């Protein structure tokens, strides 16, 4: 391809003309190009707009998106019902259990307050209860919520060494249990600077551990259920009499068979039938 001198001259003139006519436009174009290509420059112009939008979104989000979000959550919940039940069930179960146990102990406290007598069973008991306005349903409920002894541990004071025990259920290693209980006692004693005062009850979920201290040892009673104040008094009296009548002599003698002697003494005194592992505690004269 060849160009004549005239045509070259025309195109140069045309370019000159373009330069003159488009000078301002080209300068503006360059400026815009610079703004678009340089991050900092672009940021100066765009950031305020984005910030305004974000602020506006924050301010108006509930109004503008509430319906959408609600719908999304609703759909998600509907689609994950099984998972939700699996997550919530154990927590709800524990809460309900605790609530029922607490209500039972309240009911029993209230009945104990109304009839502070020992003979409440049989026809005479029924008559007494009716006279005092205690419904049979209340009585049955209260009786069903009574704490059962699961184990009794005689533990040397200070060292936490287990002297002897009897238990109806399989628990963790009894020596370890005695050691950990003593550690908790020691911790509480030191943390609260209470000297000789001891923790007398530890409650966890539906389980309670009642402890009673004597000079050389303490007794820990593991119970399934919560103790009312009246239960605590009864248990405390029963333990004191057991210590005076049976335990003190065994501990003082401290023979090689101390563990077996304590085991037999607890079974004989506190469990109706150690052979069949009856968990019913003999405290009442019922």
């Amino acid at each position, binding site marked *: 391809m060849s160009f004549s001198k005239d045509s070259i001259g025309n195109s140069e003139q045309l370019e000159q003309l373009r330069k003159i006519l488009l000078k301002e436009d080209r300068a503006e174009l360059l400026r815009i190009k610079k703004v678009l290509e340089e991050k900092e420059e672009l940021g100066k112009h765009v950031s305020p707009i984005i910030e305004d939008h974000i602020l506006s979104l924050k301010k108006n989000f509930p109004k503008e998106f509430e319906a959408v979000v609600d719908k999304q959550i609703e759909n998600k919940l509907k689609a994950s019902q099984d998972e939700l039940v699996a997550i919530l069930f154990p927590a709800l179960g524990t809460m309900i259990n605790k609530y029922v146990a607490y209500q039972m102990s309240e009911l029993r406290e209230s009945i104990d307050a109304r009839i502070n007598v020992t003979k409440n069973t049989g026809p005479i008991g029924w008559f007494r209860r009716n006279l005092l306005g205690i419904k049979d349903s209340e009585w049955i409920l209260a009786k069903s919520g009574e704490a059962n002894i699961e184990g009794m541990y005689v533990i*040397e*004071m*200070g*060292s*936490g*060494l*287990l002297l002897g025990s009897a238990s109806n259920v399989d628990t963790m*290693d009894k*020596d*370890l249990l005695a*050691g*950990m209980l003593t*550690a908790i*006692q*020691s*911790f509480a*004693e*030191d*943390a609260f600077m209470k000297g000789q005062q001891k923790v007398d009850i530890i409650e966890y979920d539906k389980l309670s551990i009642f402890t009673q201290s004597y000079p050389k040892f303490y007794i820990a009673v593991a119970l399934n259920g919560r103790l009312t104040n009246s239960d605590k008094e009864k248990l405390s009296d029963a333990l004191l009499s057991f210590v005076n009548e049976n335990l003190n002599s065994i501990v003082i003698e401290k023979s*090689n068979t101390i*563990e077996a002697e304590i085991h037999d003494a607890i079974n004989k005194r506190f469990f109706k039938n150690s052979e069949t592992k009856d968990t019913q505690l003999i405290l009442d004269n019922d």
Partner: protein
Amino acid sequence: MTKGKVILTGNFGVGKTSLFNRFLYNEFGEKYLTTIGVKVGKKAVKVEEVEVTLLIWDLAGEISQDKVPNSYFLESSAVIYVFDLTRASTYSNLEFDLKYLREKVPGVILKLVGNKKDLISESELQTISENLYQKADLITSAKTGENVEDLFMDIARHLLEGKHS
């Protein structure tokens, strides 16, 4: 059956829990674990065919022994004071700590143990031993298990014989 309460005490991170785990479960945790409060473990050992049960209280590390709750030491049969051979700060306070323990639990078996032998050379061990306030009863390594069994067996033997050093 003979039973005894054995206390593991000493500074932070000297390897008490590792010794505890090594003796009780024959394992060594590679991860550093700061003891919180007290951890109780049990091990029954046989000394000349007689069973001796050791209830081991692994206490949280304290800079000084007077910071340890007094009641933890009550009626203990033995106290093992552990220090870290690689950290001088864990044995620089030995004189005070050992005197304190002897006053707090008079008559009990008190063992001074230097742990983490696997991390130092023989010459370093010799230098450390020469500068200790009191000669260590045993040098152990919870990592390799060196002397750990011997430490507790020695205590079990003392308990059985009723000898308190």
